[in-house]
């Protein structure tokens, strides 16, 4: 090669006079700028961050344990902290009255009457029921706590007398992760098959496409039910959790795989892929250096958008009694108790897990929207 010239022809001099300095930002930064522009996506991601933190620190946020029952308070309505006592005096510190629980001999209904003599103040960051975080950090510190015999049930209790507020966060641990685990599985499976089919084509592509077509033609819920019914009842809760994730992803990977295949199929004919081929780049190099980086952001978008379906799937399965089994709990399982109209009328608080389902799904959809904007940083 020729050494860099001392006298350069004018085709070279000045060719780069005016590079625009503002354009010197990486693709990643461009994507972040795009994402930030979508307000809803930002809100969605903040909500999700809080939800996942709450799920991790479920033991800390809930005043009672997962399996802690309050025999005298089955199906209790919310018992909220109060600021004003019976005499109308205002107190800065929230407090509760202890409740006398009696069964009305005539109606067999449980009647709660407050004992207004003693105020039990709500303690913040107080010691209470022991729990573990992430399976290994032992603690008994709670966000708030009242001394026995007083109780605080922010969202009431179920018919076994378990605090719904505490159980919702334990349920979140399952409901919010089953989607992630399921999506990761279908991501791996779907991406591998999608890339292989889209890039190499041929018989493998034909066969895998037909299988996917059959798979996505099935009505989802019956297919889920059939697969979930295959899970041996003897399996432990954790095994069951992963089995449910696999069931969900088995139904879900096909759609993802098709989209990946479509993208790879289009990119395969892009000039830069052809240029790489003319530079004798191997298939492995073309896939890992050219196709994957240019599809990855889209794949993540598709994955994010399919998480809500997984959460709903788990909720549906558990609601129907074929998903998560006690003693584990999930939002679907919590809602399982609210199957009868009678329950809904008498204990409407049992429906609150549904609000969490809705909030998480909307947030994931908003996040997906924002990621979709970000995935195409060069579009207008």
């Amino acid at each position, binding site marked *: 090669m*020729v050494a*860099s010239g001392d006298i350069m022809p004018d085709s070279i001099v000045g060719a*780069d006079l005016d*590079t625009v300095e503002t354009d010197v930002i*990486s693709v990643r930064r461009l994507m972040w700028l795009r994402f930030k522009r979508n307000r809803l996506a930002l809100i969605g991601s903040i909500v999700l961050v809080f939800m996942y933190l709450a799920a991790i620190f479920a033991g800390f946020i809930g005043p009672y344990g997962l399996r802690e029952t309050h025999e005298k308070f089955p199906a209790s309505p919310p018992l909220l902290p109060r600021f004003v006592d019976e005499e109308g005096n205002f107190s800065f510190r929230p407090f509760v009255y202890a409740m006398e629980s009696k069964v009305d001999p005539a109606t067999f209904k449980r009647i709660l009457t407050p004992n207004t003599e003693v105020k039990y103040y709500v303690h913040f960051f107080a010691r209470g029921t022991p729990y573990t975080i992430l399976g290994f950090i032992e603690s008994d510190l709670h966000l708030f706590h009242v001394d026995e015999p007083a109780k605080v049930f922010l969202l009431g209790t179920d018919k076994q007398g378990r605090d719904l507020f505490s159980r919702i966060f334990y349920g979140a641990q399952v409901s919010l992760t089953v989607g992630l685990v399921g999506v990761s599985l279908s991501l791996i499976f779907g991406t591998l098959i999608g890339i292989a089919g889209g890039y190499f084509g041929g018989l493998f592509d034909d066969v895998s496409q037909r299988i996917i077509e059959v798979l996505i033609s099935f009505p989802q819920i019956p297919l889920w039910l059939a697969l979930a019914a295959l899970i041996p009842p003897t399996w432990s809760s954790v095994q069951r959790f992963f089995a449910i994730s696999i069931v969900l992803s088995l139904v879900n990977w096909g759609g993802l795989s098709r989209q990946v295949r479509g993208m790879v199929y289009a990119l395969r004919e892009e000039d*830069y892929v052809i240029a790489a081929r003319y*530079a*004798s780049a191997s298939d492995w190099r073309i896939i890992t250096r050219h196709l994957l980086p240019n599809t990855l952001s889209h794949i993540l978008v598709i994955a994010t958008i399919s998480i809500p379906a997984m959460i709903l799937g788990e909720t549906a399965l558990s609601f129907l009694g074929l998903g998560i089994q006690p003693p584990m709990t999930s939002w679907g399982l919590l809602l399982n108790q609210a199957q009868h109209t009678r329950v809904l009328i008498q204990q409407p608080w049992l429906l609150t897990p549904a609000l969490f389902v809705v909030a998480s799904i909307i947030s994931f959809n908003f996040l997906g929207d924002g990621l979709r904007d970000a995935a195409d940083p060069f579009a207008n």
Partner: protein
Amino acid sequence: MVDEGRVVLKVQNLKKYYPITAGLLRRVVGHVKAVDDVTFSIPERTTLGLVGESGCGKTTAAHTIMRGLEPTGGKVVFHDRQLGAVDLATADKDTLYQVRRNMQMVFQDPNSSLNPRMTLLDLIGEPLLVYKQAKGQELIDRVAELLKHVGLRPEYMRRFPHAFSGGQRQRIGIARALALNPQFIVADEPTSALDVSIQAQTLNLLQDLQDEFSLSYLFIAHDLSVVEHISDFVAVMYVGKLVERADTHRLYHNPKHPYTEALLSSIPRPDPTTSKKRAPIKGELPDPANPPTGCYFHPRCPYAEALCSHEEPPLQEVEPGHYAACHFADKLSLRGVNDF
């Protein structure tokens, strides 16, 4: 016309057909002859301009020559620096791997020919890495040198293509094609996506590099003024076939095919004093799946006679080194570029 030993590429009767299928069983009912019996050769250190209107098969011909597409028939003999004469149409994978060091391509659209997720270092360094010619610091040095050759600052090598203008991106594409120090470059409309003032810079760069590295070009374009400027020889394609081939001066000033004359008359001249009344040729490009009988150009040809509608004219040497596919090539006296 040119001594065999000094020819870098010889394309003989190259064909690329696409089957037209019909019905559930995908029965082949015909062919689109995208490239049909194309023959030309490119002497070393020269540029052959391949012109034609959209859909005439010039880009397909380029990719078939590069063996990005499998030819249906014909030969593509490349005189490789190391291997000697190789027929690319039938070459095996190993041979192709070796030959591609010496032949590269520059693409039309500088936006789609550069991977947006790769830095200049990765883009230009890719061929060097694949051929294990350099890595680490040496790779960085080689890429820096290549960037200097195409007029970009080496400091830019960690930037992404989107930070550059169209003209600069085309320079990046040229640097990538140069990385392995090839003998021959296929340039597919390298300036048609660029602005007028950037086009001249890019054409000059290609010419400078040709002198510097003894390159030969197959230059594909639809802009006849650009082709005239850069080419030593010109071949004209119409619906998959070569209709005329000669050295640039003779083809532009003394065309032997009525289609070439029609093309030359259609060029808008940047000169308001020339006559604005140059009756352009009538009609439309035919559908390549269903071309006319006989000479493909006869329905639009002002000189067509009965013979033209049923007999296909072969590409014949009308004068030494001047080939035309017209029954009346030696009888017609057609107007050259300056006669309009």
